[in-house]
């Protein structure tokens, strides 16, 4: 019996918890999409897709589980199987392979002990290079087991035994990978700063730069700093797509793919830049153009925005909403990013007009949310100061208020002068009382004699 995954207890739970569950079919093909990734990222992405899209859940979990079984992360395997069991209990992969689990656990334990033992031996021998490598092996081992906190600790211990800038750079790169896996974005940024400061030879540095800017972009995006994220992504050299592994990590496959750079960079730019900036910094950037060619619809959306075809731009983006919701980094931020783009489109759309009917606005932009009318959305934008306009509910118009600079300057001057006058009066009162030696005193608060000099009064003036 095949159960519809959407009705499975797993997705019911998810919906009850208010998590995002994507009903629509995405545009991408799972096989080819996931073939872009390697290593733990691949499993994590598969799990994200599996847990968000009922249509792809079965395939995604199957792939994830079979890959997890090749690795050392027993916890990840058991989690995946448990989740999959709730979706498709009859699937052969949905039952836990206890024998494998037991064996793997023992293997892992033995390997951990062996590595720790080796490290102790190296420490006794006091050979710097061996200690460094011992710690490095241990870090890799923990990372493979999914214990990133322990891995970070092991890699950090390498620091004392690093002898060349190259080694320090490698160590920091590994820290970055592990922090990204933990979603510790501030720590990612700190490690990146340290990485930039390492004095490498120019040719090595040039290999490192694309990695640094791509990781900066990712961490800025995940901390909600979209403008910096956009700039970091745009500055990522196109050599990122084809580069050799750096620090033993194939970044474009194990962390963030070139397609991701294009999508993230394009969306962040749309959310944070104005039309001119988009035209010159994004479309006009010969380097970033290479990335955009991987995702032509992002380029189309940006071009449409620059050509003031906002509704078409939003339509394109809306078409890819499902795809982006199935991206593990975009998922939680997509509504914010789309919201920003939409708000900006409305503001930009309104700029050349002095008056637009609300119907026209509604037909151009639809309603972002089924429950809210375009009026409410506009009213909210006006009251938060994003849009300088007034709504005429009677004739259904959005009106740009007349500006009268001269009048405004005059009224501002008057208001300021009044405020100044009042402040001056307050100061005068205080000055007079201090001068007369009057103040309320703690002890004799009932009489406060008229001619007692105020202590330290002048210093307080």
């Amino acid at each position, binding site marked *: 019996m095949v159960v519809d995954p959407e009705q499975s207890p797993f997705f019911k739970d998810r919906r009850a918890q208010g998590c995002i569950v994507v009903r629509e079919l995405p545009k991408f093909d799972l096989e080819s999409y996931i073939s872009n990734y390697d290593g733990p990222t691949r499993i994590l992405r598969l799990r994200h897709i599996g847990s968000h899209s009922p249509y792809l859940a079965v395939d995604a979990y199957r792939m994830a589980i079979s890959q997890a079984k090749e690795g050392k992360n027993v916890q990840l395997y058991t989690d995946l199987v448990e989740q999959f069991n709730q979706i498709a209990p009859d699937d052969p992969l949905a039952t836990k392979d206890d024998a494998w689990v037991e064996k793997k656990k023992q293997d892992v334990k033995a390997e951990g002990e062996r590595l720790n033992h080796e490290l102790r031996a190296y420490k006794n021998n006091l050979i710097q290079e061996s200690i460094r490598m011992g710690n490095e092996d241990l870090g890799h081992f923990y990372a493979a087991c999914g214990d990133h906190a322990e891995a970070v600790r092991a890699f950090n211990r390498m620091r004392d035994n690093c002898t060349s800038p190259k080694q320090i750079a490698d160590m920091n790169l590994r820290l970055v990978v592990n922090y990204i896996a933990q979603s510790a974005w501030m720590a990612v940024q700190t490690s990146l700063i340290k990485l930039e400061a390492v004095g490498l030879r120019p040719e090595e540095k040039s290999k490192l730069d694309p990695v640094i800017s791509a990781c900066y972009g990712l961490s800025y995006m995940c901390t909600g700093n979209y403008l910096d994220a956009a700039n970091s992504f745009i500055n990522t050299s196109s050599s990122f797509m084809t580069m050799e592994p750096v620090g033993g990590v194939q970044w474009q496959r194990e962390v963030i793919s070139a397609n991701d750079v294009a999508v993230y960079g394009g969306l962040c730019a749309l959310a944070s830049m104005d039309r001119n900036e988009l035209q010159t910094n994004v479309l006009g950037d010969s380097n970033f153009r290479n990335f955009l060619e991987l995702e032509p619809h992002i380029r189309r959306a940006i071009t449409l925005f620059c050509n003031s075809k906002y509704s078409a731009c939003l339509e394109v983006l809306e078409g890819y909403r499902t795809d982006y919701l199935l991206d593990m980094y975009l998922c939680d931020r997509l509504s914010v990013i789309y919201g920003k783009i939409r708000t900006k489109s409305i503001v930009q759309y309104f700029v050349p007009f002095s008056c637009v009917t609300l119907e026209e606005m509604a037909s151009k932009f639809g309603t972002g949310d089924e429950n809210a009318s375009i009026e409410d959305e506009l009213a909210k934008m006006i009251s938060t100061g994003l849009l300088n306009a007034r709504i005429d509910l009677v004739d259904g118009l959005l009106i740009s208020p007349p500006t009268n600079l001269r009048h405004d300057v005059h009224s501002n001057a*008057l208001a300021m002068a009044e405020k100044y006058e009042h402040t001056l009066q307050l*100061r005068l009162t205080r000055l007079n009382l201090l*001068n*007369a030696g009057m103040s*309320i*005193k703690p002890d004799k608060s009932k009489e406060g004699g*008229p001619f007692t000099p105020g202590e330290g009064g*002048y210093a307080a003036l």
Partner: protein
Amino acid sequence: MSGEVLQLAQSYQLEFAKCDSNQKYHYAALRLAQRLASLTLTSFKKGAETAQDVLLMLDPSVHTMVYAYALFARIATAPSTSTASDSFRPGGNIWKLICHFLENADPVQLRYVGEQWSHIVDFVASMARLAGTPEAAIEPILSALYRLDPNTGTFTMAHLCFVQLCVETRNYAAAEPILANYIHAVNPSIPDLVESLEYSAPAEDHDSSAEYIKAGSGHAGKVTIQAVQEYYLLGTTAYLGLRKFKKARDFVEHVLVMPYSNGAANGFLIEAYKKWLLLSCLVDGVVPPLPRSTNNAAMRAVKAVSKAYEALADAFKNRGNVRKLRAMINAGRDTWLEDGNYGLVNELLDGQYRIFISQLSQTYSAIPISKISSWDATLESDELAGYLEKLIREGYINAKLETSSSKPEMGVVLRFFMDAREGPQAKSEKQQQQALVEQTQRTQKLAQQVQSAHYRVGVQDEYVEYVVRQNKKAAATAGDPMDLGQYEDVEVAGAAMDAHDEDLMGD
């Protein structure tokens, strides 16, 4: 024999007439004051209640000093106030003479009889209260204040007494002209040494009343900081009575910025802070930061006992939640009643709605009023129209009510004027310019008064000592060039310091 007094009055009338300079006038006035002080009280009373009465024979506008002494003597020797005869009471003969005196006295001569003047004013107030008609004293005291000082900017106890009477009788409008003349000096004093150096007799033509109503001149009475606090709080009440909330808020801030040493606070401050919270809500919709130069420690103490009001202000800020505000107002009813703020607290309900309406103008240019009542059901649409009209009339919103000709089904529509040059609140550029010019003049005058207050501070012994100490400190911290900015602050300090040094040499 009253003849003695009359003779004195006449001889000095001639002498005053002969004076061709203010300085000579000053010395003549001093001599007269000395002569008058040496007379016994009874000598003024001779012939009282007859045609030979000094008070009837003399003209208060000419013989002001003599008349003040005579009135003073009459009041002082009158039977105790509670048994005072009818002639002292409002409407009585003496009362009329006193009023005539207060309204017509010579302003320059008044400067020499401060003690008598303040005593007479006190007497008027207490008599009016005694007779059960405190309002009778308002008019005479008002003219007394104006007669002495057309600007009424130097604080005297008569100010307090006047505002007390106004608030007592709920005659708030009468208090307004005095309240509007902000206080620019309180007990002004400069050291004798400085005073003798620069020539400043009371009889001179002064720009500021602070030059002749001084700590020692007797006009002000025994001014205490509590009196000043009370004056500002009562003034706040008066403005509240007139529903001028912004003015009231500005006024109450004076109490907040007064010096409170070592974090001491008193009841006046607590009351002021509570009123300030409520008024800020009504004026701005939110509670702004406290004015600068409030004493942090004192405010901490005050805030600790004003939690209920802070909660109320918080509820007010959260517009669209009328129910919470109403519930809080009801729950704290006893507290507000006890503090005498019940009326003001109730005003918040209206205020919240008013701010809600006036903020609509930031978002909308026209709304059917049925829509407003659907958002906030405080008022039904038919009541709302009347309410909005009232707001428009009172100038809270720049809008008009109309019925849309194209869409009559919308009903009555509130249409805001987006251009500030249209609508009932419109101001033409000319009006604005006029307002700016007036403001400039006011500020300039204020700056002058600040300067003279600054000057008075600059010549105080304590201040001079402070500057000397600072100089020593500056000299001690190595030979870096002296910070001149510090001295620009007090240009006079240098001069005063010289005087101080001379003083030391003389010793």
